[in-house]
């Protein structure tokens, strides 16, 4: 089939993809506090971008105060920073032409700043204030609390079920979702304690990109973030990057209303830092292109949770009168088909090259050596990734389903979503 191709051209190109690296533009260093810093030098443009990300295990919210991380995110969003209240900070940013942003997701806070490189000192100082001294007491906590709850209330039941589905994939315990009561329990002190507990240097990564050299970067980071030390609160458990990722019941959420649909999520047993997971994730979109003939409208995608963990999501809608449970059965058969694939060394070599190129394209640095994973390791991981015990399902538009329905065989227990509480 490939005979018509100019194979020598392809082979030569594929083999000779790693050019001689020039002087690296990327530097990585770690402060004694554990803060990881990455510098991407770019002297072509007189601007600087700062990106600070903190990740933590989602279950760190204290029991009985679920939703406090969402509330903390809103307070951080409000924009107090050290000596500046929100309005003053906004005015400073406005006058200097500094672009500032904050984003939050389950288990993740991100601050970004973009400015002229002449303002690098001021930008680092503002970033440090926003991250370390967010002035929690200066915010109207009641307003923020009401808004968090309002957002939750304004969701439709289907949207809520989808959120809960993702939340359970991420955390493995549905009680992590906020209730009106748990939000009401959160006060300024507990919010400050949570801030100290999760916003820690050893959980953070700072990326500086722009017109800055290594010496300047070290000096600026030490000056403004060097005092960011360990908090008195107990240390968090180690990051789940490459470790095993547990899953908990329920394995199947069922919603009586909505469009009849079935979704099946398959979460790998290790995090995004695991080399075998990242190589299989590179190959997965190609494997999912082949859809079973009995599921013509189905889609199979590789998605990522907020902590970067890739997962496979198979989803299909029922034609009118169709039974979502029957669709789930067929999605599970599709999953079994993918899991039975043979993974060969050629697949892995291709995935390794693509992975290296992706990183090179993202960082603007020459591709590094591809990760080495044996075919046996990858095949074993694939089996575990798609095992029934790691499958999580969401069914919507289901009037009734028996717990011993064949679609649920081998899955964990089922739970009905009847309200947003």
């Amino acid at each position, binding site marked *: 089939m490939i005979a*018509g191709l100019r194979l020598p051209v392809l082979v030569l190109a594929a083999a000779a993809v790693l050019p001689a690296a020039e002087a690296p533009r990327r530097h990585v260093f770690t402060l004694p506090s554990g803060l990881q810093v990455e510098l991407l030098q770019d002297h072509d443009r007189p601007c600087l971008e700062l990106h600070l990300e903190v990740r933590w295990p989602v279950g760190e919210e204290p029991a009985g105060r679920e939703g406090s991380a969402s509330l903390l995110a809103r307070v951080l969003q409000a924009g107090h920073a050290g000596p500046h209240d929100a309005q003053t900070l906004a005015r400073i940013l*406005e006058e200097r032409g500094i672009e500032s942003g904050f984003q939050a997701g389950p288990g993740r806070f991100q601050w970004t700043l973009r400015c002229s490189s002449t303002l690098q000192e001021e930008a680092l100082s503002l970033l440090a204030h926003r991250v370390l001294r967010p002035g929690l007491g200066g915010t109207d906590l009641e307003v923020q609390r009401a808004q968090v709850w309002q957002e939750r209330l304004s969701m439709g039941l289907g949207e809520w079920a989808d959120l809960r589905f993702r939340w359970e994939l991420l955390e493995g315990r549905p009680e992590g979702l906020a209730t009106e009561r748990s939000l009401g329990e959160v006060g300024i002190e507990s919010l400050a304690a949570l801030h100290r507990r999760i916003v820690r240097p050893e959980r953070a990564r700072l990326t500086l990109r722009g017109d800055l050299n290594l010496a300047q970067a070290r000096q600026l980071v030490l000056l403004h973030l060097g005092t960011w030390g360990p908090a008195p609160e107990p240390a968090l458990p180690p990051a789940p990057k490459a470790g095993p990722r547990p899953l908990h019941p329920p394995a199947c959420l069922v919603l009586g209303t909505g469009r009849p649909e079935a979704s099946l999520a398959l979460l790998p047993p290790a995090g995004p830092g695991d080399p075998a997971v990242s190589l299989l994730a590179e190959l997965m979109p190609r494997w999912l292109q082949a859809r079973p003939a009995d599921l013509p409208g189905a889609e199979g995608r590789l998605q990522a949770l907020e902590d970067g963990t890739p997962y496979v999501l198979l989803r299909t809608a029922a034609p009118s009168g169709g039974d979502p449970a029957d669709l789930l059965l067929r999605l599970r058969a599709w999953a079994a088909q993918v899991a039975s694939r043979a993974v060969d060394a050629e697949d892995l070599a291709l995935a390794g090259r693509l992975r290296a190129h992706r990183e090179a394209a993202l960082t603007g640095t020459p591709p590094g050596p591809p990760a080495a994973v044996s075919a046996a390791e990858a095949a074993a991981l694939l089996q575990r990734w798609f095992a029934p015990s790691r499958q999580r399902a969401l069914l919507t538009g289901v009037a009734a389903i028996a717990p011993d329905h064949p679609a649920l065989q081998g899955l964990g227990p089922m739970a009905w979503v009847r309200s947003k509480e």
Partner: protein
Amino acid sequence: MVLPLLMRRTAPMLVAFAVAAQPPEVVEGRLRNGIRVLLVERPGSGMIRAGLFFRGGCADTGGLPAVAATLLARAMFTELRPEDLGPQPELDALLERADHLRESLRVEELRSGRIPGAPGPDEHRRSLEASLRDTLARTAPWTTAPDRPDLLDLLGAVRREVSVEPDALASSLDLPAPALAAWADLEQRRLRALRLARLPRVRQDLDAEEAAHDPAEALLLESALPGLPYGRVRESGRQAGVLLADLKAHGREALSPSRLAIVLVGDLKSAEAQAILERSFGTLEGGDPAERTDAGLDLRRRPGGRRVQVKAAGRPRLRMGWLVPPATHPDRLPLEVLAQLLERRSGGQGLALPAYLGGTARLGVPGGRLGNLFVIAARPEEGHGLEACEQEIQRTLLRLQQGGLSPEAFEGALRRLELAALAHQADPADLVRRLGLGWCQGGDWRTAFPDLRGLRREGPAAIARVVRVYLGAEAATRVLLEPDLAQDPGDAAQAELYHLLRAQALARLDDPVKAEALALQSLQQLRMLSREQRDQVLQVLKPGGKRP
């Protein structure tokens, strides 16, 4: 005393000079068949971002619906497999057959919908469906077999993107620098063959995407730009009528060399890259070399004043749109600054949209070669009606029109535009996109890197001027989407409230339709209250309920 004051006054100017964004250094060329080439050298990364940009997108599909552009771009560029490069008579025959069966099925469904109970439609339909399934299954060895190599994967290409804009079709990717010649050769062979092998799967994907489509944007464009090309770029549900043969005929025109610009940014040498492109893309037959000379939208015949009210699932939302000039017009920049100011809470002084509106402001037609629509979208928090939001938006615009914008806020907005332009240049993917789209939408890549000096000279008055000229209340098209509360009351408490209101109305009115309408109207008004107040009403309405 004077020096600090002087420093304070001049600091913003110094900063402005420091960051003034220069356009990138682009080497421009043209192949012998007319294809444009834009090259930017960025040595050291070992990678090249490559993009193919075809002028004319979903607003330029001739007699076909806009979705034809998406079908064409995705079927053509999402993958590259051996069958895309040479003759495949067996596959072509199967694709044609699947296409005819799909069309017969569509016609049958239309017919059975029009004549209920017509003899044997179900049986015929089932037979057509079975034939279609069988035919598609037979195409699977070519179209979905994961063991068949994707040739761009073999080259090491990553971050592949296919995009369809109103004025452009684009395909771009990152590839290792040594693979440039192989990529160019494969792409020119693909363009020459113009085989749409993945069309059946692309159709399925689009069907699934359309199910999750929010109708708000499509309604606004259709209402604000009726009968104009941009008015139908978001319309949905039209792909079934687009046949493979039509799509191929459209592809031969839409993907012709005269419409193509190749943009490369990365680890390359311009002369070598140009020679590689000449040997590959340069051999494609030229097509029509004529430059496009479409007339722009006539702003003088702005329809405006339209108001569309629709029941739709989800939270209540409002879209307001005003017709504004195209990408190349000097007023485009102040309109972009205006959009930024409206969205930023930090601007303060009542010149930004209030936070409770959940508002965004932007130009609604990406690019907008012929003209554009300035769109303000609001998704208000509970307790705020859409009419009140509309009035608040008008009040905000009026304050801007009266010149309430401070020079500092204006200068800050300009600086953020400059920084954004610099940041776009830092990322090769972003730079390729801007260069390519700039050429497709403005006729010249430089239009994507506008010079802010003129706007800076005019000052904040420019913002007041564009609001006055384009964003008058009479010129606005409004689309209001509100949930059908009978179908989707929101939560259990509201559902209960609705049932109680309906029961009360039925007790007083004989006509159930009127009773239903009254209950819905009451529920709509009660939604303006806080949750606590609504709970109190619920308690009062419950049988035996008392006033708190």
